[in-house]
């Protein structure tokens, strides 16, 4: 790699976590579905004039939401990444833990993606793609303000002008 000194401080090789706001995004991500299901169940129970069932649904919904919020927090705290000299390393996963190394010179394409909640929070998902579809290199919560610079830096490290024939 020609990059002697990283031009962007986030990529200084230290172990990093995602942006703190990503926790809210994760929670929203996992709780939305649960909330919708719970509300539907409660409404259905009320229509059917079964207040006990509605209360039960509300209780279950609350408990599950609590668990999912907890899991989202864990998911955030388990997610670390590190831009080493040669490769980007990710470590994440709550139940199944995953580690992944993606060498910069294998990068074929870099995607930036924003879900609605992410847009509200000012976050972006940065996805590095290689020729292999099974590559796992997704940073699901970097500040949008940094995202473009990150993308540029990864592109630079990828040396995409030299990547004519990686396959």
């Amino acid at each position, binding site marked *: 790699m020609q990059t002697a000194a990283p031009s962007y401080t986030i990529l200084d090789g230290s172990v990093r976590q995602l942006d703190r706001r990503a926790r809210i995004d994760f929670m929203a991500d996992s709780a939305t579905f649960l909330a919708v299901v719970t509300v539907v169940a409660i409404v259905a129970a009320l229509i059917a004039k079964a207040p006990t069932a509605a209360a039960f649904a509300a209780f279950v919904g609350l408990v599950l939401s609590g668990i999912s919020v907890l899991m989202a927090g864990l998911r955030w705290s388990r997610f670390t990444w590190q831009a080493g000299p*040669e*490769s980007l390393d990710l470590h994440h*996963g709550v*139940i*199944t*833990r*995953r*580690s*992944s*190394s*993606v*060498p910069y*010179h*294998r990068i074929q394409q870099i995607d930036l993606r924003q879900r609605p909640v992410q847009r509200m929070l000012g976050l972006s998902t940065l996805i590095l793609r*290689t*020729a*292999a*579809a*099974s*590559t*796992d*290199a997704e940073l699901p919560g970097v500040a949008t303000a940094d995202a473009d610079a990150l993308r540029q830096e990864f592109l630079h490290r990828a040396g995409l*002008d*030299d*990547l*004519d*024939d*990686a*396959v």
Partner: protein
Amino acid sequence: MTSMTPSDRPDSEEDGPEPGPHSRAAERPRYGSSAWPVGPNPLAGPGGAPTGPPSQPGPGPTPLNLATPMWFGPPTSPAATSPPAPPIPPGATSPPIPPGASSPGPTPPSYGSPHGGPSQPTPLYGMWKPIDIPETFPKADPNRPFVPGAPGAPVTPDLDDVPRRTSKRSILANLSGTILVSLYLAFRFEIDGNRPNRAGQTLVPHWVVFAAVLPVATVLFGIAYLRWRNFTFRVNQHRIVIDRGVLTRHHQVIPFDRVQQVDINRKLTALVLGLSEVRIDTAGSGNETSVKLRFLAPQDADALRSFILYHRDLRRAHAQAAGTGTATNAATGGSAYPGAPVSPTSPTHLPLPPERTLVTLSPRQLIVGALTHNTMVSLIPLGILVAVWTGSFMAIASRRPANSGAWVAGGLITFVLLLFIVAQTLIGTVIRHWGFALSHQGDDLHLRFGLTDQRHLTVPRRRIQHVEVIDNPLRRIFGLVDLHLHSAASTNGAGEGKASTKFEIPVLRRADLAIVLPLLLGDPHWHIPDLTPRPPAARGRAIRRRVLALVVAVSLPAITFRPAGLALFLLALAGIPWGLAAHRRAGSAVTPSVAVLGHGVLHHRIVIVPRPKIQSARTTSSPFQRTAGLQTVHLDVARSLVAPHLFDVDTAMADTLRHQVMTVPSRRAAPMPAGPAAATT
């Protein structure tokens, strides 16, 4: 320009014991044959220094300038600069060239074999040019000489680049399915419709059938004709351009640099009509990444394939000669040819390596391969399991304990199922791989096989993403393996199935791996390294998992037929030797050039991934694995649905694998070793 009829051309499909240059090998237009401009002068031999391009004055070799390569320049007039035409050796038998076939240019010159063989004055692209494109073709210039310039002169790009159509017979070939269906329908109508009913009337008179069939047939034929008419392809030294589409026009450009693979397929219809389909694949997954030319005459298809491969390699050699600084093509990897010129004085022709046959399979070997196929081995345990489950389901359904009738029925169903699978596997394998031949030419692997659907696949060795060596107990007894090569061509490109980029050497002696694998991996001394076993903790897990799986598998019959059926749970004890064997056979190794993973008991497979092909690496660990301090390693390679992986590696080893494979010593593949190697299984 007079068109050559197919019968005028040397027909490589005619397989007869003809001696001399008319033998099959001599006439097949390959690099090694003289059909292509392989040397500036037939008398100069393989090492002959090329005379400089005629357009460049001054003696001696001309330094190549990539900015304006000589082969990008305008065509040089052959008349002005050509050296005297080389004499045609008197002994050489020339295929009949009708006068005017290549007029108004000079007589087609002969091109010497780079290996000093007798030259054969075959017109260069005359082989596939004049077939279906009449002089009336809109863009064609009838005054353009269709000869490759003077010998020694660079092949100029706009020498050709004339739009061409596929063979006219492809209209028929593309319509064949429709024709058969409509013939059948018409026939049925004729028979059923004209049968008088009770009242003595015919339901559908003859004229109705004709009235129905005729317009439909006309429309279908018209569409097929228009599609054929609107499909043209143009080839020059750098790329192939396809223009197609009746209503929506498609314009596709495929630079030869990007070609992953060129295949020739002859399905049954094409075979009957004497046609070949050429399929050009680039890396990718979409429809637009593979181009099909349906259909060309077989010799045209072969010539086109050779042309593409030749110019792809020529471009690479040029890029290398120009120095690695400019990088575009230099990154494409090592020289395709052991003897390829890499000096700045790169000539305009490549000395072409001969094609060497590595493996051929006789029908007997194919049958042996089919009989020892993995499917056969899986059938025995699977059959037992299916029989037991069928029996228990029947017992449950009939609410009676296991009676003999249920067992007979279950057994019968299983037997029929097994028989069907056996027959399908046996016949399918033999027909699909009939006449299997694997050869290599420089860096390209050629696979030819098929009885009804003939294939000729050309896979550049550098494009192989990983190799699997697979065996099973039956094959281990006979010392046989099969070899799967996975390439990076598009999934809907040429592979065995629709969603596969796998090529298979269906059966191979284990001893021959020592010859084939080094060639595939580009290292003459390569051999399968000793695998480092997994840690002892993995053994316990391997046993536990298998015992558990067996308990689940026999649970239903065991409970259904209790109390006697409970003895089935004893079967779960088989999980212990099974797990031990699984542990013994699993392991991994990392060498400077490859990463190797081995696992499996019944189907033991050794996956060899060249390190330059590993895109990224992952480890995963479930909670159960973490308590044992184990991880699963995945090596991500292009175009593989499931990444090669190995269960239950200890954490240290996993991290080593994950990081080591990242540091690739060189991104360039080594050239194909030139050792004389020929294994005939």
